[in-house]
């Protein structure tokens, strides 16, 4: 009985989270990330560098006793590094037991984008859009929906290792 209820609650919770995206900015673009992955948003913190890591993994931070890695999404997308300021945020996402902080220029809002308003990205010959799962239309604006798994799993590194 009890399990049924929790199951129901869980589903409900999942339902309310479905179709909602946290949007953040990187330069002039707005990106969206599924809200179910997001645990919290914090301001920029002192980052401890860890040697020998790829450039976009900036290091580790102390999140209330839990040590999590932080990734600069700008660098991940091969954009130019920008000095952190008070608008810079760390979006802590939790995926498959892995917590990681994403450094973004600024967080905008939580938006509900129905599936019908999301289109698959155009097939570009260049490999650039592999992090983008879809393109959401909100009014006149366009939000790029990120594929979290791709973001975290470094396929480049893997493929390099395989060679």
């Amino acid at each position, binding site marked *: *009985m*009890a*399990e*049924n209820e929790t199951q129901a609650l869980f589903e409900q919770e999942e339902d309310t989270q479905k179709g909602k995206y946290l949007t953040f900015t990187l330069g002039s673009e707005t990106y969206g990330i599924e809200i179910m992955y997001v645990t919290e948003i914090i301001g920029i913190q*002192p980052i*401890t*560098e*860890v*040697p*020998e*890591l*790829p450039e976009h*993994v900036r290091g*580790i*931070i*102390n999140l*209330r*006793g*839990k*040590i*999590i*890695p932080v990734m600069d999404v700008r660098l991940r997308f091969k954009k130019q590094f920008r000095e952190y300021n008070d608008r810079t945020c760390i979006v802590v996402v939790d995926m498959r*037991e*892995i*917590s*990681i902080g994403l450094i973004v220029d600024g967080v905008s809002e939580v938006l509900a984008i129905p599936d019908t308003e999301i289109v698959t990205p155009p097939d570009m010959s260049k490999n650039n859009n592999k992090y983008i799962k879809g393109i959401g239309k909100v009014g006149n604006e366009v939000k790029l929906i990120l594929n979290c798994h791709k973001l*975290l799993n*470094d396929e480049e*590194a893997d493929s390099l290792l395989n060679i």
Partner: protein
Amino acid sequence: MSNRYISEPMLEMYIFETTQNVEQLEKCILDNEKCSSYSKEAVNEIFRIMHTIKGSSAMMLFGNISSLAHQIEDLFYYIREQNPQFIDCSALSDLILEGIDFIKVELHKIKNGEEADGDCQELIGQIKQYLSHIRQGSQEELAQEKETGHKVQQYYIASGKLNITASGNYYKAVIYFEDGCEMENIRAYTVVHNLKEITEDIFFIPEDVIDKDDTVQIIREKGFIIYLNVDKPYEEIHEFFMQTIFLKALELEEVSQEEFNQLKRPKHKVVETSPIKVPKVEVIENKEAEHRETVSLSANQSIISVNVNKLDKLMDLVGEMVIAEAMVTQNPDLQGLSLDNFQKASRQLRKITSELQDMVMSIRMVPLSTTFHKMHRIVRDMSKKLGKEVNLKLIGEETEVDKNIIEQISDPLMHLVRNAIDHGLETTEVRQQLQKPKMGTVTLEAKNAGSDVLVIIKDDGKGINKKKLLETARENGLLTKSEDEMTDKEIYNLIFLPGFSTKEAVTEFSGRGVGMDVVIKNIEAVGGIVSVDSTEGIGTVVTIKIPLTLAIIDGMNIRVGSSRYTLPTTAIKQSFRPKQEEIITDPDENEMIMVRGQCYPIMRLHKYYGVRTAVTDFTEGILIMVEQDEKTICLFADELLGQQQVVVKSLPNYIKETKHITGLAGCTLLGDGSISLILDVGGLISNHG
């Protein structure tokens, strides 16, 4: 669905309990075997444990375990009741240990989510045979035996063959109510009340169900036990009980009239004598377990089992609190103010937090005795199979070590003990020729040494033949150095190389040359060191040095540029500021330093980790000489920040998966909340070399 909901935590509990029981049983048997007779208490104990296992296994629908336990229970029931004089103790032990092994294997299957599908028919057959054997051997009246045998077989509802219509039957019923149905005592009373309509001859445990509130707890944990005398057949009684509301499980069995009467009169003794009353919850097998017979129920309940994850979480929180405390008491806002009362209060706070921290640490510490006692079984089995007489001596088994470490060293210890018996000790005949005591001795010793624990495995066997060792190493091409240059220690350490075995014949237990390699890997995984020493003809000593805990180390914090690193203090030999003329640079630009006539390589940490720093001149920074495995290196850092105990945290999984960083053992939080990386000296040295 609701079935699954119930069975998950129950299954966990079942596995836990049964594992404990089996361990207890094993120990009990081994203890008794040593004095080659089974004491009355031991028989009772085994009977009780088997009964518990049988009951809970039947409840969890593990038929094979249950029927095996049932058979062993039968056997001990007979022994207990008839007290036969002619028991072949060692055969009995073999049989029971085989049974234990079977249950262990099945438990393992259950743990891994597999079907417990082992076949125990053969074993049951053996036990039956043994039982009939001792029956014939004893001079008891046959008629009585028949009755016992008859009764025993009709014992249990799960076996499904019940048909007794004789009047005046005595029954024992144990009722378990569903979890969370509340008011178990009142429900129990209702059952008794209903029963009074059919019979007057009832008594039940716990008594005073209505008057005392704590009975609820007892009923929840152990079930409600009713003894009754009624002239109804088994089925009818069973049906009667099955009508009980919120019934989760029912154990109904017949008891003899004597047992009934005996239990009925001295009601207070029921707790000790009733075989059902044993589902004990024991977390740690400690010394108390040895005195189990005398331990009262209340003492058992003072131990609870806690999920290790919760402990880890608690430790994290305490660590956080220590940092928060420093942030408050050393707040920059307070600087320059003289606040007497604040200082007093903060001192108090500091005292409490440090006590709390010690306490949390001590929770994770577990005595080594469980691991040590497991060796008894190995020694026993091996001495039987190999025909060597072995005496296992345990010293310092009460030494406490972090739980994680215990899990890691159990397998290596087993290997080493096996090796000691198989390779180390000579056969009895050879020993006699050599005028050594007939019985070989293997000593297992544990002791504290600073922040380390030493575990020593010593045998008085033939020792290691250095020549033979070197020969084998040469044949297998494992020598990297000229033989003359090797120290004794280096020679002995050859046995840890993979694929190394001087044993001519591979036996069931050892000699394949894989063991020692695994031993050293496991020990090194927990930051331990293994060393071997041996004297030919006198024996071999293997010493394992393991850290007391993985969670806390004494560390020296150093700074390089804006990064901070922590070095384990145990690895540091000295730190000093060099003079320019002591530095030597070879043509390959490798820097070295001469200290007291010895030359050591220098590693610039800022270069190694690519950290920007203003301090690149040796005379401005500091050199720290570190040593591991007899290799020494000097690390160059900007400055020393000071020494402190640090809580070791592993690097986030994401980073570990992305790249394996050599030379980093983990990270830790410093007093000001910043993160410091813990350097792995061994990794640094091997990387530099």
